[in-house]
């Protein structure tokens, strides 16, 4: 059983994605249950695989019995296992949040939603678990296609935004594919481990540089790294709440993961990848600041959060670029933490919009009284985004800062601090409206309009996670993240 875990994690949601529309036709109410069960099962499988890996070392699975490097291989190591657990955690929360009547209410549409959502999860899990460069491309496109369909389901503005995302996303994927082509031409293999061993011999080839550049650009677009972030704000803003919640939480993170995987596990440390990392470092400093500044300028809270994501992706890539153990721990912890925090924030904002139709910050007046629990969750997650203790966001920032101090990268230190200050500005603006302003006179006090339980519960779970994992961050760091660092840096 354990031997089959890697493939089970991917196959469970995939099978459910196929089954859900059929089930929805016959038993409309069962579709939701099937989706939940499949994701929960994938979650259990991920956690089981992760704990097995932590105890006994990397788990490899030869797909279809074809031995690597010819066959496709699925690899669960602490990094991919941790990512798998993260993705399934958020996925379970979001699918519960979306509820049985997701996407407009009718059973058929709800079945469609769940099917696409499962497909998206499949794609992301595949990206994380595969040990094959081309297979990664395929999963990248599976997840993207599912994401396009989901994002487009939010009205005409969402459709236009999605078409743009589709164009940009395809450019990104094609760049990645070409990069993989170059790497294949240089090494004659697509298996990541095999490729890593063979690449050391060809570091000086000009084609290798081209390969790194193409791959990095492709993945950086997908990860919405400034200035390649143009697709993100519109796509996040106009999509239905659960979709944005999930995509904002994990999709860009998975691309960041792929970037990390390629630059730290596939390409050799010296040569083109080192230069690429240096460049990424400078770009991400700009990303951190630009994202925060743009977020401050927004009136629409969804766009504000979207731009804040652009800045936060900068944090993660900054950690990768610094490359010291502390910085990498910070980047990976932030990858995890930001997924939880931003997922929570988008679920809150989406829920508020669903309940009251409000999405402008200036209309949030009195929201603290109308939806006290929801806004409390927003406050906690926002404080974590700013990076105040004892939340998860503080500790990831701590590691990033100490990595930057160790590396004597003072500019990066300054950027991180400045970005926190900007974060204070744009989040406290929301707090001021929600708690200190009263709604326009004449309307009276609006009634209490708390979200239904199935929407509130996932929000509160994620909020609790922000605090609990903050206090227990040493368990996460020592137990998982340290083991997920690339060979030379792992304990």
């Amino acid at each position, binding site marked *: 059983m354990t031997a089959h875990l890697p493939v089970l994690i991917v196959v469970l949601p995939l099978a459910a994605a196929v089954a859900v529309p059929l089930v929805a036709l016959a038993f409309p109410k069962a579709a939701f249950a099937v989706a939940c069960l499949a994701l929960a099962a994938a979650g259990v499988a991920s956690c089981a695989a992760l704990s097995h890996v932590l105890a006994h070392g990397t788990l490899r699975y030869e797909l279809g019995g074809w031995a690597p490097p010819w066959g496709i291989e699925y690899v669960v190591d602490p990094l991919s296992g941790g990512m798998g657990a993260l993705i399934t955690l958020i996925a379970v929360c979001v699918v519960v949040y979306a509820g049985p009547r997701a996407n407009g209410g009718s059973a058929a549409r709800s079945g469609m939603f769940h099917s696409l959502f499962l497909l998206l999860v499949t794609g992301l899990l595949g990206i994380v678990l595969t040990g094959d460069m081309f297979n990664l491309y395929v999963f990248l496109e599976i997840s993207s296609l599912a994401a396009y369909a989901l994002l487009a389901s939010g009205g005409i503005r969402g459709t236009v935004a999605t078409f743009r995302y589709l164009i940009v996303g395809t450019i990104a994927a094609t760049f990645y594919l070409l990069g993989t082509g170059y790497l294949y031409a240089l090494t004659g293999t697509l298996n990541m481990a095999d490729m890593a061993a063979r690449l050391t011999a060809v570091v000086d080839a000009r084609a290798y540089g081209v390969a790194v550049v193409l791959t990095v650009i492709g993945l950086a677009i997908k990860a919405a790294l400034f200035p390649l972030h143009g697709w993100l704000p519109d796509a996040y803003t106009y999509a239905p709440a659960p979709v944005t919640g999930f995509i904002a939480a994990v999709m860009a993170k998975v691309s960041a993961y792929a970037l990390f995987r390629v630059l730290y596990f596939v390409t050799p440390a010296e040569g083109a990848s080192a230069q690429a990392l240096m460049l990424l470092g400078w770009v991400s400093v700009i990303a951190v600041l630009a994202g925060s500044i743009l977020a401050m300028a927004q009136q629409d809270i969804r766009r504000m959060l979207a731009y804040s994501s652009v800045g936060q992706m900068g944090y993660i890539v900054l950690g990768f670029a610094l490359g010291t153990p502390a910085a990498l721990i910070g980047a990976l912890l932030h990858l995890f933490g930001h997924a939880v925090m931003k997922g929570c924030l988008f679920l809150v904002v989406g829920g508020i919009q669903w309940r009251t139709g409000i999405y402008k910050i200036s209309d949030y007046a009195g929201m603290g009284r109308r939806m006290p629990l929801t806004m409390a969750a927003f406050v906690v997650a926002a*404080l974590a985004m700013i990076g*105040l*203790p*004892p939340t998860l966001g503080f*500790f990831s920032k*701590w590691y990033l*800062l*100490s990595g930057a*101090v*160790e590396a004597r990268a003072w500019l990066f*230190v300054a950027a991180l*601090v400045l970005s*926190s*200050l900007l974060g*204070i500005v744009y989040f*406290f603006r929301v707090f*001021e409206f929600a*708690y*200190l*302003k*009263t709604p326009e006179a004449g309307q009276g006090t609006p009634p209490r309009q708390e979200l239904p339980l199935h929407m509130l519960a996932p929000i509160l779970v994620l909020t609790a996670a922000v605090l609990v994992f903050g*206090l*227990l*961050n*040493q368990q996460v760091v020592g137990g998982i993240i340290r083991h997920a660092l690339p060979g030379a840096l792992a304990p």
Partner: protein
Amino acid sequence: MSRYPLLAVLVSLLAAGAILLSDRRPNVREAWTFVAAAVKFLLVVSMLPTVLAGGVIEATYAELLPGWSLHLRADLFGLIFALLASGLWILTSIYSIGYMRAGHYTHQTGYFASFAVCLSATMGIAFAGNLITFFLFYEMLTLATYPLVVHDRTEEAVAAGRKYLAYTLGAGQLLLLALVAVAVLAPGESFQPGGFLMGKAPLGVLGLVFVLGLIGVGAKAAIMPLHGWLPAAMVAPTPVSALLHAVAVVKAGTFGCLRLVHYVFGVDLLRAMGADTVLAVAAALTILLASVRALGEQNLKRRLAYSTVSQLSYIVLGAALGSTAAVAGAMFHIVAHGFMKITLFFCAGAIYIKTHKLEIPDLAGLGRQMPITFGAFTLGALGLAGTPLCVGFVSKWNLGMGALQSGQAVFLAVFVASGILNFAYFFPIIYTAFFGRPGQAIRFDEANPALWAPLAATAVVSLILGIYPNAGLQFYHLAWTAAESVMAGAGQALAGGGMP
């Protein structure tokens, strides 16, 4: 016993939850505040014998960062602050209830809940055993105070709230940087009397870290030019100004300053860096300039705020002088100033509730109308000016002695000059109140007992402590023992670590 510090932190945090849940029943809500305040005070007091006997009560909990756990420790210095804050919380609670109800304030549930969280954070700061624990509660205090500052929801209050956050959270980020640097230089160290950074890095690097950390704690301690938020924050209801802006928040800043100087860096390292002079000069300038500013303020609360700015720097100056008497004086002044300033703020609140006036010329004749309030006010003001037999004299005497011990007599002059300035800005108030000509006839008309009883109590305590500094909770003894341990630790650090 080793859990007591954690319990003291948690009790008001739990109370905050209970307060929020009893939103609709004000009496139950207030009962929670009292229960928590009493339990907290008893917990803190019960630690006193052990600590006085030379023991340390400590426990570590979840590891937060490599080597740095959530470390709560009741040592001599921490206990001074904890005793002060938890004791005054009881009085402030009585006063708050009287004030908020008499003033018909809204959002009282949020007010009392935030207040309780503030006290948790204050206990956490007092009992923090290492920098990360300190920082955690320090930021928590900032956040919990924010709702209190903006309590009125007016434009002015919101603007003051922004200013408050800009100063304190901004400074917090610099403190964070200092922490990261300390964590890199000396991973996992706890606070130690005499400091632990000696010889860990070149002096230039340590100097930079010190400046960052000092700005971090200095913003809350309102060292000029980081004081701007304090007068602005006076828009908050008066009990908030009383406990938080005379005791908890600003004292957390000075407490952090003392911790930083004497438990992280150590006085010898400070001297080696030359930072003691810089700090002392900054504090001395703050003492004088803030006193002068206070002279120019016509609003009672703002005058008190500038007086606070000035008095806080006594403590900072004492820390910078770094002789035993000066440090003991600084630590004792945390207590002394706490009792005196809270008396003055209580008086301001009682006056405001009764008359809705806070401009000093409007106070004419009020002293004869509210003799208890103004009697207490007079005692507090005399104490702050350093009149013998008042508690302020004890701390100032020690500070002055400390200045002489350190061979820097010029700072004795600063204390004297400041005393004169204190008289200069308090005397007109007292004179106007007692001898000014009011517009209408005077009759005895105090505010309700929930307002005047606490202020009378604090005034009496500050008088008693002025005569018997060791009365009751042995604050004076605690301060001296703590100062001696700091100095002994500094000697050891010098002998053990050597110069870099």
